[in-house]
């Protein structure tokens, strides 16, 4: 079993609610966009939304003169989501180090009941 040694970062997230969707915006700079399928995992199932991403970081080679304020690591955040989200339909894009996700609301079925007046 491999031992996970990478530090875990919690990405900052904004959430907006529109009429038909929930919009997630997560700061995840440093993911390799050319191999985004390999480094970013977004899972929406069983009432949870999981965001997991591995940062790409080119370590300086041979230099002793280095000052590091951020390091290679793993973004990870898990949200519980409610029953009004359609887990089968999620779309997203990764642009300029930011992950944008759109979660669709389930369509509400409204049963109109006619009331008879006697």
């Amino acid at each position, binding site marked *: 079993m491999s031992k996970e040694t990478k530090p875990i970062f919690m990405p900052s997230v904004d959430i907006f609610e529109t009429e038909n969707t929930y919009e997630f915006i997560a700061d995840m700079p440093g993911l390799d966009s050319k191999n985004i399928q390999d480094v970013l995992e977004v899972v929406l199932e069983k009432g*949870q939304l999981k965001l997991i991403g591995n940062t790409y970081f080119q370590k300086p080679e041979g230099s002793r003169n280095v000052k590091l304020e951020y390091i290679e690591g793993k973004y990870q955040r898990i949200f519980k989501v409610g029953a009004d989200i359609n887990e089968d339909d999620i779309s997203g894009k990764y642009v300029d180090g*930011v992950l944008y996700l759109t979660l669709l609301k389930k369509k509400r079925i409204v049963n109109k009941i006619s009331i008879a007046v006697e």
Partner: protein
Amino acid sequence: MSNYLLNQSPFFKQGVVPSTFSDIFENLFSFDKESELSSVPLCNIEWEEDQVIVTAELPGVQKEDLSITVDQKNLSIKGERKIPEIEGKSLLQERYTGSYERTISLPYLIEDGGVEAVLKNGVLTIILKRKEDSKPKSIEVKIN
């Protein structure tokens, strides 16, 4: 009945986390990346005898909204991140919006036109070449 009330919000209310969602991991096993919460971006700096490489995390910043200047031995990075243009109700707002600014002292003077910058995947990389006449010179000293 109580479950029904909880389900009114798509992001369950629980504990001390913001009222519109529940975040399982909260702060366990993680440490803050301050750049995402403040106006000062985190930078990595590597310097050799002939060049300095600076990288800065600037997720969501467009290159049009970014300014890089070098004045003597000072590198200045200024940027702005705009509020997302989404017409909807804000349920959670953790991401910083507004101006970024960082000034870094360089170890030596930089060659005119010797600065290259690339903004990719929310990370800004700046390579600054050392000014030729500021490089250390080897002088042969005769010892009598």
